[in-house]
C-alpha cells in the first residue's frame, strides 16, 4: 500500500505538472519578454510647465515629434508624430501651442494632459515664408496670434475663420511675435538683410506702424536676439558687422529709437575681429525682470561667456554685466527652456566636469561629472522648477541623451536615451551561458596552468565554496524575483541556459553605440564614437566574435560608420561592456566606403572578417582587419566572392563584381551589369544578404511529396523600378546576385512607390514576398 500511495502521489504530481500549452505571450509577461520603448528624438525646443499640481517637460524634436515627459520620472506621457518641422512651442494653462509646416501654415493647440488635438488652423501656404513662422497665446484670452503663410492672423479657439487677418505682403520671414500691451509685434528677417517690424493692434489687426531695423545686417541665430521683458519693454539686439558694434533697439516707441552701444563690458579686451566671431543667445528674464542675453566670444583661444542685462531709464539705456565665465566650451540655455525659473548656463570646466549656473549668478548652483565617452558633449542646458518647488537642470547631449539633474546637488534624477531614435542598424549578441560551479572550478584548476595536484585540490574547494557563498547570498535563488528591479533587470554578463536572453546592440547616426538587454529592455552599456570632436554616423553593426562560456576572449562587436569628413571609421568594442577592444579601438580609414558587409571567413583570432567596398566607380574590396593574415584567411575560405553596386534609388544600372585572390592579392573585376529597361529607374531594392551564408542548399521538402528537392537560392535580389514621374506602374525584377541572371519579372500597372508608399520585400526559403501600393 505504501507503494500504491507513492504511485498515487507521483501520478498526482505528474498531473499537476501537465498544464495547458502556452500558445503566445501572456499578459503578465508583457514588459519582461516583450517590451516597447517610445522615442521622441533630440529635442530642439523644450518648455517646462506646471499644471494641476504636476510639472511636465514639453518638447519638440528634430524628428517632428511633439511629446510630453514627466518632469519627475522622465517617463513619456504622450507623443504626437507631427512629421513637420515644429517652429513654435508654447505652453500655457494646460494647452500646448505649436506651429509647423511650410511657412508655419499649420497652427495647432493640444491638450497638455492627454495630448489630444484641441483645434487647428491651416493657413494657405505661401512661398514668402520660410519654415517655422511664429505664434503665441494672446495674454488674457484663449486666442492665438500667428504669423502663418503670408499673413498675421488672430485665431479663436475652434480653428475656424480668423478673427482678423493682416497681409504681410512678403515683406520678410517672420519668426518672432511679441505681445506688448494691446499691440503685437511681428519681427521678420528681410531678404536683403535687416529686420522688418510690423506693429498691429491686437483687437482689430490694424497695422499701426511698420519700419525696418538693422538695415543690411545679416541676422539669424546667434547674430540677433529678441528680448521680451514684459512691462520693461521689448528689445532687439543685433551685431552690426559694418560698424562692428552691438546695437540695441527698443520696440513700441512712436518713432524708432536707435541706440548704439559698444558693449563696454567687453570692449576693453575685445578686438573687432573678436566681435565678428561672437554670438548672442537669449536668456529668459525673471518674471518682472529686465531683459537679459549672453554674449559668447573667443579671446586668445579661450571661449568666454558674459551674461548681460539691459537697464533702461527713460530714454537712456545701459548694460550691466551679470556674470562672466571662462571655459573650454560653454553651453547656453536660453530659448530652449523658456518660461521657467530662469535659464541656465552650463559650463564645461577642466577635467570634464560641468557646472550649472543660474542666469546672473556668479556662483555655480551645482556641478556634475559627466562622461562624454558615453553620450557625447552637452549641447544645451536649462533650469526648471517642479510643482513642489524643486529646481532642476535639464541637459541634452550631442548623442541624444536627455537628463534631469538636481540643480543643487548635481545628482542625476532621470535619463532618456533618445539616441535610439536615430538607430541605423542592430545586431543580436548571444550572452555566454552561465557556468556551473564545476566549470568554474575546472577553469581555476586547469592542469596546464596549475601543475601541483595539491594546489589544484585547494583551488577546487575554494572555487566551489565561492559559488556556494554567492548562491546563499542570493537567497538560494529565491529572492531574485522579489527584487525591485526584477521586472526590468539590468542585463547580466551571462545569459540563461536556453539562450533566450540576449543583448541587442544598436548603432545610431548620432555616434552612440548602445546595447539593450532583450529581457525588459534595460540598457547594458553605451559608447559615443567621435573623431576630432564630431560624432561618427554609425551605419552598420556586426558581431565579429561570439560569446564563449568561460572564454578568455570577450565577444566583440564592430561598428562601421562615417566621420564628419565622410571617412570610414571602424570601432571594435567589447560587446559585454562597450569598452574599446584595443587602445586604438576607433580606427579612421583612409577611404570612404560605399558598402560594408560580413565576409564568410574567420581570422586567426576567431573574429569574423568584414569587407569594405571603397570606390563606387572603380570598386575594390578592403578586408578588415587590414592585416596580411586576414587577407590570407579570406582567400582561403571565401574567394571568389561576389557583391553588387548601383542598387540605390534612382539608379538605372546594377553592376556585379567578383573578388578573387591572385597570388595573395585581392583583385576586383566587373562580372555583370543589368540595365533597368523601359526608361525606368530603381525605386527600391531588397536583398536578404548575409555574406557568411553558404551557397545553394538542397533538401527534401516535407509535406509536399511531389517535390523531393527545392533549390533555395540565398542570393536572390529583388528590385522595384518605375519611371521618374511615377507613371506606368512598377516593375519588379528578381535576379541572381552572383551571375546577374534575371530570374523573374512582374509588372503592376497601377502601382507606385514613393515616400509615402514604400516597397518592402523579403525572401523566405524559395518564396519572395513583397508589398507595394496599388491605386486600384
Amino acid at each position, binding site marked *: 500500500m505504501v507503494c500504491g500511495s507513492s*504511485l498515487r502521489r507521483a501520478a498526482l504530481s505528474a498531473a499537476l505538472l501537465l498544464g495547458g500549452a502556452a500558445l503566445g*505571450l501572456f499578459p503578465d509577461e508583457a514588459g519582461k519578454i516583450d517590451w516597447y520603448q517610445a522615442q521622441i528624438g533630440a529635442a530642439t525646443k523644450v518648455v517646462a510647465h506646471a499644471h494641476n499640481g504636476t510639472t511636465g517637460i514639453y518638447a519638440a524634436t528634430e524628428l517632428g515629434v511633439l511629446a510630453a515627459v514627466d518632469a519627475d520620472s522622465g517617463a513619456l506621457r504622450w507623443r504626437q508624430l507631427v512629421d513637420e518641422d515644429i517652429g513654435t512651442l508654447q505652453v500655457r494653462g494646460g494647452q500646448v501651442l505649436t506651429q509647423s509646416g511650410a511657412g508655419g501654415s499649420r497652427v495647432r493647440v493640444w491638450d497638455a494632459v492627454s495630448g489630444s488635438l484641441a483645434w*487647428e488652423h491651416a493657413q494657405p501656404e505661401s512661398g514668402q515664408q520660410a519654415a517655422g513662422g511664429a505664434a503665441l497665446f494672446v495674454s488674457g484670452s484663449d486666442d492665438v496670434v500667428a504669423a502663418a503663410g503670408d499673413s498675421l492672423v488672430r485665431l479663436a479657439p475652434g480653428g475656424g475663420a480668423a478673427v482678423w487677418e493682416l497681409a504681410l505682403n512678403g515683406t520678410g520671414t517672420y519668426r518672432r511675435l511679441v505681445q506688448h500691451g494691446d499691440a503685437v509685434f511681428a519681427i521678420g528677417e528681410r531678404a536683403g538683410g535687416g529686420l522688418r517690424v510690423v506693429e498691429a493692434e491686437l483687437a482689430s489687426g490694424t497695422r499701426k506702424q511698420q519700419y525696418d531695423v538693422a538695415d543690411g545686417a545679416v541676422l539669424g541665430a546667434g547674430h540677433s536676439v529678441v528680448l521680451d521683458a514684459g512691462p520693461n519693454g521689448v528689445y532687439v539686439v543685433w551685431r552690426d558687422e559694418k560698424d562692428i558694434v552691438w546695437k540695441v533697439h527698443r520696440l513700441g516707441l512712436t518713432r524708432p529709437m536707435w541706440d548704439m552701444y559698444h558693449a563696454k563690458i567687453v570692449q576693453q579686451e575685445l578686438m573687432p575681429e573678436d566681435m565678428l566671431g561672437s554670438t548672442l543667445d537669449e536668456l529668459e528674464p525673471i518674471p518682472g525682470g529686465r531683459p537679459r542675453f549672453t554674449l559668447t566670444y573667443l579671446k586668445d583661444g579661450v571661449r568666454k561667456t558674459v551674461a548681460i542685462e539691459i537697464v533702461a531709464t527713460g530714454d537712456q539705456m545701459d548694460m550691466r554685466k551679470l556674470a562672466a565665465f571662462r571655459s573650454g566650451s560653454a553651453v547656453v540655455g536660453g530659448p530652449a527652456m523658456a518660461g521657467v525659473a530662469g535659464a541656465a548656463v552650463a559650463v564645461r570646466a577642466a577635467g570634464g566636469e560641468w557646472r550649472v549656473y543660474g542666469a546672473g549668478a556668479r556662483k555655480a548652483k551645482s556641478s556634475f561629472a559627466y562622461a562624454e565617452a558615453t553620450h557625447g558633449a552637452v549641447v544645451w542646458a536649462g533650469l526648471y522648477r517642479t510643482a513642489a518647488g524643486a529646481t532642476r537642470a535639464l541637459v541634452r547631449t550631442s548623442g541624444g541623451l536627455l537628463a534631469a539633474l538636481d540643480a543643487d546637488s548635481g545628482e542625476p534624477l532621470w535619463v532618456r536615451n533618445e539616441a535610439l531614435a536615430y538607430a541605423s542598424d542592430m545586431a543580436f549578441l548571444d550572452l555566454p551561458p552561465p557556468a556551473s560551479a564545476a566549470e568554474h572550478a575546472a577553469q581555476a584548476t586547469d592542469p596546464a596552468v596549475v601543475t601541483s595536484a595539491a594546489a589544484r585540490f585547494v583551488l577546487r574547494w575554494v572555487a566551489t565554496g565561492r559559488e556556494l557563498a554567492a548562491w546563499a547570498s542570493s537567497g538560494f535563488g529565491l529572492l531574485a524575483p522579489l527584487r525591485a528591479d526584477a521586472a526590468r533587470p539590468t542585463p547580466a554578463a551571462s545569459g540563461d541556459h536556453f539562450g533566450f536572453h540576449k543583448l541587442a546592440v544598436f548603432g545610431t547616426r548620432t555616434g552612440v553605440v548602445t546595447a539593450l538587454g532583450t529581457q525588459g529592455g534595460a540598457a547594458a552599456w553605451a559608447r559615443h564614437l567621435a573623431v576630432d570632436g564630431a560624432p561618427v554616423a554609425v551605419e552598420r553593426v556586426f558581431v565579429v566574435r561570439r560569446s564563449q562560456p568561460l572564454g578568455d576572449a570577450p565577444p566583440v562587436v564592430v561598428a562601421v560608420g562615417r566621420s564628419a569628413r565622410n571617412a570610414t571609421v571602424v570601432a571594435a568594442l567589447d560587446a559585454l561592456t562597450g569598452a574599446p577592444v584595443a587602445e586604438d579601438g576607433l580606427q579612421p580609414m583612409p577611404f570612404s566606403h560605399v558598402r560594408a558587409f560580413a565576409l564568410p571567413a574567420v581570422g586567426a583570432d576567431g573574429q569574423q572578417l568584414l569587407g569594405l567596398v571603397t570606390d563606387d566607380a572603380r570598386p575594390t574590396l578592403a578586408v578588415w582587419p587590414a592585416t596580411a593574415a586576414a587577407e590570407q584567411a579570406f582567400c582561403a575560405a571565401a574567394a571568389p566572392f561576389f557583391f553588387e553596386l548601383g542598387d540605390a534609388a534612382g539608379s538605372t544600372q546594377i553592376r556585379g563584381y567578383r573578388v578573387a585572390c591572385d597570388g595573395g592579392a585581392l583583385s576586383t573585376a566587373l562580372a555583370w551589369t543589368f540595365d533597368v529597361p523601359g526608361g525606368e529607374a530603381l525605386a527600391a531594392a531588397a536583398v536578404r544578404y548575409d555574406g557568411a551564408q553558404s551557397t545553394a542548399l538542397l533538401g527534401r521538402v516535407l509535406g509536399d511529396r511531389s517535390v523531393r528537392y527545392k533549390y533555395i537560392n540565398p542570393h536572390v535580389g529583388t528590385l522595384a523600378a518605375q519611371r521618374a514621374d511615377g507613371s506606368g506602374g512598377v516593375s519588379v525584377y528578381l535576379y541572381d546576385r552572383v551571375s546577374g541572371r534575371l530570374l523573374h519579372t512582374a509588372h503592376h500597372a497601377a502601382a507606385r512607390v514613393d515616400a509615402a*508608399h514604400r516597397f518592402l520585400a523579403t525572401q523566405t526559403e524559395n518564396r519572395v514576398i513583397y508589398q507595394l501600393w496599388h491605386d*486600384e
Partner: protein
Amino acid sequence: MLARALLLVQCVLVLAAAVLAADKTYRLRGTVVPNDVLGDVASLAAGAQVVVNGGEQRAFIRGDGQFAVDGLGLGDALVEIQSTEYAFPKIHVRIAVGEEDGRAAVAARYVQLGAKWSEDAPVLAYPLQIAASAKYDFFTPRQGFSIVAMFSNPYMLMVGASLAAVFILPRLQANIDPETMKELQAKS
C-alpha cells in the same frame, strides 16, 4: 454665328472650371463615435491618426473624436484610422463634382482590403461617423485549471491507463475463477 460664339464661350468656361477643379483640394470631415468597443473617444485621440492613401495625407483626432483631413483631390481615396489599440473599418471615399450644382460631393463606402472597390455597397452618411470594430488583444490568456484539459492530455491518458492497470486489474484478477486463472497461467 452668335450661337457658335456662345457655344465656344460655354465650352471654354466648362473647360476652365474643370481645370480649376482639378487643382482644387478638399477637406474631408468625420467623427470617431463611441460604441461598446471604444467607450471613451478621448483616450484614443493621442494615439491614433487618420491616414489617407497609406500616408499621402494625415490628420489628428480631437479629444471629442472629430477630425478633418485637408488636401484631398477629386477621385478615389482610402481612409483609415491607424491605432495600435483599436481596429477601425477602412473607407473608400470618392470626391466628385456634381454636374447639376457644380459642388463637390463625397460618397463613402466601407471596403475590405483585397476586394475591388464596388459602387454596389451602401453609401455612408457624411460627415463620416466611424466606430471602432474591435479592440486589439495581443496577448494569450492563461489557461486556468481545467479538469477536462488535464485529462485530454495524451501523457495524462497514458498515466491514467497505467494507473488503471496498476489499481483496477488486480481487483479484476481477484474476481476471476481460480480454475480459469490456472488455465490462463498454463497457456501463458
